[in-house]
């Protein structure tokens, strides 16, 4: 693999709503860059053979480890978002986009909305 593909990254706009922003420094809008290629199993060391393109499942874990400030149990459960949290990709329900398997593209806007509005 060439150097350029290894270091390639994806720029994303992330929004939190419905109270989820409280878990993320009370900031609704975030801009971030994530690697385009990520390990198949989250947390594994990067290797050339066992990579996959960055998808929403990766993003969820990445947000947990890099942006989430408190109470992970209100954001994640069983490797995905907790029931009651909606995900929109470019204004479209992620259930139409393959949920966690959706491969992120440069410039994508991903919105996480809690319907549980807890404190």
């Amino acid at each position, binding site marked *: 693999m060439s150097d350029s593909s290894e270091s390639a990254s994806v720029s994303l706009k992330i929004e939190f709503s419905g109270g989820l922003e409280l878990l993320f420094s009370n900031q609704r809008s975030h801009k971030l860059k994530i690697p385009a290629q990520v390990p198949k199993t989250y947390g594994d060391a990067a290797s050339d053979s066992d990579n996959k393109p960055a998808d929403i499942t990766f993003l969820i874990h990445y947000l947990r480890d890099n942006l989430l400030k408190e109470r992970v149990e209100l954001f994640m459960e069983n490797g995905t978002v907790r029931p*009651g949290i909606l995900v929109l990709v470019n*204004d479209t329900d992620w*259930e139409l986009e393959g949920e966690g398997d959706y491969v992120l593209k440069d410039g994508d806007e991903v*919105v996480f909305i*809690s319907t*549980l*509005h807890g*404190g």
Partner: protein
Amino acid sequence: MSCGNPVSEEDSLMLRRTKYDKTRICGKCRTNVGNVVIRHAVYCKECFLPNITTKFKRILEPTINVNGTRKKGFKPTGNLCVGFTGGLGSTVLLDLISDCYYSTPTNEDVLKGGKDHPRNAGVWKKATVCYVEICNALPGTRDRTEEVRDVVEQYKHFDFLPLRIENAFDDMWWEKVGGQRSELSLKVDIGNEELVMIPQPIESRDPVAALLAYISALPTQTAVPSAIQNLVRLLLLRTAWSTDSSHLLLGTCLTSLSVSLISSISQGGGFVVREEAQEEWQPTVSSGSRRAIKVVRPLRDIGMKECAIWAWWRGLKVVGKESFLGGKQGIGALTKNFIVGLERDYPSTVSTIARTCGKLAPKDNSEAICLLCERPAQPGVQDWKARISIRSFADPGLASPPPHATNVVSNKTDDLSGPSLTPYLCYPCHTTLTSRSSRGSTASALVNSTPLPVWVAPQLDGKGIVEEWGSRKMERSDMKQSISEFLLPDEDS
């Protein structure tokens, strides 16, 4: 999603299936690419929004006129009261009410429908948005009144009416909403199933202190959210009454309705399963006209996901509700976790629950109204309880105590130290006040009597309670009990 069997009928076995039917094209216009999946159906944004409005009107509008028809436009018999919690549902509800019935007419609209068109004039003359702040019931939670005020005051047609949960123990508030003053004041001994009432000198009390005494006397943590919910409900109903409202609208969406149905059933509320979805209420004791308030939940066909997407696309700010501290132990919170989890994997579940409960009716008719929640109360529940959970060998329904029990003293006091509140309560309210956990309780052993909400005592007037007390000499022990919490330990010895 893999599936062992080509089975598709969802009611038979509740199988998981793909989140949407075959195509990504909007099922409504069949033109646009869909944006959202609602219970397997795909909608584009353009079709989604009017669809929500339609579902909202379909529930609400048949209830506006007395006879249900709307041939000559809407003519409600009173004003509008909206219960606002700051949560998602009521935020969406306010937006929809404003949009459908109070939107500012543009010139074009005036031309279209004329001044009397429902779109151009408020359907209800006056619209009050009532918010009940509960922070004083749950120490450590924040007061959201001002945040809520900011949201409500964006809508210029609505009057904002903030209440506080301690109003439930506030005689001044009670007088203001037209409540009847009672000839008696009482506390109730929450230490046993009988809930013996203890007369109190009539004097002004501090509402917050009374509220906290009530909350801390409850037998379990589980009872706290249930008790708070009931207080809020009655405060809203009374407010609707005092604002001459014919309608009280609540922001209960389909998901929340399913949660409250299951939660109510889990607390023994099967008898009032209808009232959980829709009810007509009037005070049991009132001066003046007999009119009933319709309590309507116009979002009850709209799921939580739909509400969240509506709020997002309409750019609504959701203040958020207080998630009860320690409320994880509450029946409501447990039910919510359960239902929201199920809804993700089996999206039809919530509508099935609501539909099934809609087919139910109480088995017996009852004229009795519970003093605490002012809903119908089923007769005979105490006998039922005593028979299936024996708590004492002195219960009349039982034969002799077992041979080894030579020591049995009548621990069900035959001569109770006062009249019992229990016969005046419904099953769920009695359970909230008495059901104990096997894992310890919140109530300390010292505090076992509690004041009651302002609406309880007036309903006891004329039931012979005062006479019963009047004819009885106050025993020293009764007097001591009624002031026990003010006595210091060494005065005791």
